[in-house]
């Protein structure tokens, strides 16, 4: 127990830091927090764009925006949410928590870490500046398929989008290198690979995916840029180029990117579930192998986004896509087995984690429909796909993100978030989410294509669209208690202490917030739960 009270009088972090310190810091904890803040700002921006889309679709007919702006809205909604919210916020958690979890004083390359951070708002603003140029922001969907995204059909906004995304990709690659060196080289004595928390494993696999996949996206973007601006013909079918080529290169990145967006969230869930059920994670090694398996399979399924192009070897990609379900299923069962016969405390992190399990399951099952190629012929590019990706990335990743925020906020700030507001947020978000996205399954089955600004009343899609729009506003409402909670709790939240959740991993063995360079002393590391071992006097190997 002694190890947990080494910094009894750590001052609250706000009082000792000036703005200048924050802007020039190389401390992984401050950088991690700034990652989170930056990501949440783009989350709000992306959310507002989502509401624009939902309001426009609530009823047949164009009500509030033009077709041109509608396309910009959903394109930038997706770009913000994927590249500037989910990926960076998970990297932010990794930044904050990975060095703490492995008992390291900082990341391996603190200055490169700061560079990774500052590239993000730069890239994001570059992307967003498209709204202020003539022709508007990028509008060919976040996938930016040529020829539509080519110079003939898309304006300057697309160039800004390409430049912004290239910077964001560079940020990811540098971050991944930093994570890998940190994890491989900076673990505390006793922290063997198989004693690392699962969160660290997921960041490790994610970083490998980023390292291998993101440069390929960069190459696709650069080729697109050359086609657009320097008279290249990579994707120009009229001059020997190949339009499908872009899709192959793009999805070679963007499918692994889905795992980049979900694996760290799975890691967060895998930290939260054991703590709040007072049991170890069931099947730690199986979980690690499943994570590695998902990462490896992730590179062989990219073309399942292209089944309807007619340019894909269907059976191979169908098989690989189905097989992804196996390691994912293993994880799901291990999580449930972790809850099984535990002693569950429904604090807000566990609520969000349970929400993750319930919703991510749906996101996995409705994905299996699209793995069945002929069914995908019917469902591809309809609202079914929109439902699927939101169940995975919102029901999965975003619920995981909020579980992580509620779980680590005490560590980051020294103060607890309010439980009542947290539960209110969860209830609103859970209901709003399902109202918004569940009906999209039925819309897709009814034949509503995605990315259309309008539809005729005779299609019979209006009822479900209205429901989805109402749900969208409930999700938006659920953010109010959250931001209020953060503001209030920063000032007057309950003081957390070092280890408010009776948790397992090393970050809880230092003060809240941790001092610069994190630890004076570390507990003995004999398992993947060193703090649990110390608390319960289990210092022998199990």
């Amino acid at each position, binding site marked *: 127990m002694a190890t947990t009270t080494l910094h009894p009088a750590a001052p609250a972090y706000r009082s000792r830091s000036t703005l200048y310190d924050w802007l020039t810091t190389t401390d992984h904890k401050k950088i991690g927090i700034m990652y989170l803040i930056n990501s949440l700002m783009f989350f709000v921006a992306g959310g507002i764009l989502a509401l624009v889309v939902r309001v426009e679709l609530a009823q047949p007919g164009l009500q509030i925006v033009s077709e041109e702006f509608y396309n910009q809205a959903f394109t930038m909604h997706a770009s913000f949410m994927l590249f500037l919210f989910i990926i960076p916020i998970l990297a932010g958690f990794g930044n904050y928590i990975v060095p703490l979890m492995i008992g390291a004083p900082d990341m391996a390359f603190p200055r490169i870490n700061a560079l990774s951070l500052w590239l993000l708002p730069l890239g994001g603003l570059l992307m967003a500046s498209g709204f202020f140029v003539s022709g508007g922001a990028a509008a060919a969907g976040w996938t930016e398929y040529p020829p539509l995204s080519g110079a003939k059909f898309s304006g300057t906004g697309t160039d800004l989008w390409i430049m912004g995304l290239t910077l964001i990709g560079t940020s990811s690659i540098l971050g991944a290198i930093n994570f890998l060196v940190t994890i491989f080289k900076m673990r505390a004595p006793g922290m063997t690979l198989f004693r690392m928390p699962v969160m660290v494993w997921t960041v490790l696999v994610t970083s490998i995916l980023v390292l291998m996949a993101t440069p390929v996206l960069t190459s696709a973007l650069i080729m697109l840029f050359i086609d657009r601006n320097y008279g290249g013909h990579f994707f120009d079918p009229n001059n020997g180029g190949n339009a499908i080529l872009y899709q192959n290169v793009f999805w070679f990145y963007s499918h692994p990117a889905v795992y980049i967006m979900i694996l760290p969230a799975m890691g967060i869930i895998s930290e939260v579930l054991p703590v709040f059920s007072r049991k170890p994670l069931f099947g730690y090694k199986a979980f690690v192998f499943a994570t590695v398996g998902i990462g490896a399979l992730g590179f062989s399924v990219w073309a399942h986004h292209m089944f309807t192009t007619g340019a894909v070897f269907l059976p191979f990609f169908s098989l690989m896509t189905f097989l992804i379900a196996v390691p994912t299923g293993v994880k799901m069962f291990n999580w449930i087995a972790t*809850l099984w016969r535990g002693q569950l405390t429904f604090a807000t992190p566990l609520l969000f984690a349970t929400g993750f399990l319930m919703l991510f399951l749906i996101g996995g099952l409705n994905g299996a429909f699209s793995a069945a190629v002929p069914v995908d012929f019917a469902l*591809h590019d309809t609202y079914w796909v929109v439902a699927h990706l939101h169940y995975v990335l919102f029901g999965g990743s975003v619920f995981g993100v909020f579980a992580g925020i509620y779980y680590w906020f005490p560590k980051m700030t020294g103060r607890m978030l309010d439980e009542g507001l947290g539960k209110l947020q969860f209830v609103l978000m859970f209901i709003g989410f399902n109202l918004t996205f569940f009906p999209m399954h039925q819309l897709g089955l009814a034949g509503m294509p995605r990315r259309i600004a309008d539809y005729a009343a005779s299609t019979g899609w209006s009822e479900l669209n209205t429901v989805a729009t109402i749900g969208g506003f409930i999700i938006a409402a659920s953010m109010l208690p959250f931001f209020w909670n953060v503001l209030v709790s920063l000032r007057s939240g309950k003081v957390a202490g070092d280890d408010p959740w009776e948790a397992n991993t090393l970050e809880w063995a230092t003060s809240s917030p941790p001092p610069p360079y994190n630890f004076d002393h570390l507990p003995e590391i004999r398992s993947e739960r060193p703090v649990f071992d110390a608390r319960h006097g289990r210092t022998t190997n199990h």
Partner: protein
Amino acid sequence: MSMPPRSRTGSGPLIAGLIIVAVVAIAAIALLAAGITPERAWNSFFPVGGTGGVTDRSRDVQRLYDIVFYIAAVVFILVEGLIVYSVFRYRRKSTDTDLPPQIHGNNLVEVIWTVIPTAIVLVLFALSWQTINQVEAKVPAEVHVRAVAARYQWSFDYLAADGKTILFTQSLPVGEDGGLVLPVGEPVLIDLRSEDVIHAFYVPKFLFKRDVVPGRLNQFNFTVDEPGTYRGQCAELCGPFHGSMLFEVHARPKAEFDQWLADQIAKANATPAPAPSGDAAGPVIQLAAQNVAFTSATLEVPAGPFTIHFKNEDPAVPHNVEIKDASGAQVFKGDIVTGPIETDYRVSALAAGTYTFVCTVHPNMTGTLTVN
């Protein structure tokens, strides 16, 4: 060494219960408000509202969908059941001071829940593969049509047996006189062609779509086996008006189709493409189409023949001017031209009164024409 349990039990079941009650209540209210019966709700979980496909191949797809759906439903109920059961059954009680058994795992169950899902997905894969072969099978076709997608217009070239010669082009994608007309019960081959961006040929009732990729020839076969009119739509984002790129499939009995096709070919041969007229008759009025809208909502002409100088300023978008009288009957229809282009439409004398002019391709583009 374990910490005493904190007073943190109690609110969990309440919250969980509230969530479930609220979800059910809101869902029920929303459904009832929209007048949705349980049967309609159930059908909405199947393609095209449970009404099923109308081609030979769509039935194979539907069968596969049903299999996947029922397997997914069973897994869904089982796993969600386990989660919900754990949530209610294993809440920490105030008597739970000692740790629960610290189980780290069990290799047997890991193997079980690896092998069973593997078996399920392999079966699904085998079924999918089989269905792929059915859906993708090439058969000799009776009718060969080339669907040409251009922003934001479909047109359909009916091809001769050589697969090259165009018998005639159906340039109207929707409406009584337009659409992709096909015979029931005859194998059809569709070629897909685009000269601008990627589009996708999608007919929900076919349970099928295929991308129209510039520089690439995609083909597919099917046989429609129910007469009727089926909505089709572009399913790959192609620009701002992607959502208005609609078409219709009219499936007609074989005899009727043959008659229709013969008529269309005869008509196409009888009226050679009208050459742009050299000298305009009567007064000339200006009209332009810009961003899929007419630049003027009202036009005024004196009695007698007149000429509309029509300027289509939308690159790669087809427009025309069609004039309808008060009853909605067509009194003039100009040729559809793809912009940017200028053309003259010569309109013969119209009785004084109020007419509507409209773009045949984009029924949203309308205006009022007054003949004095």
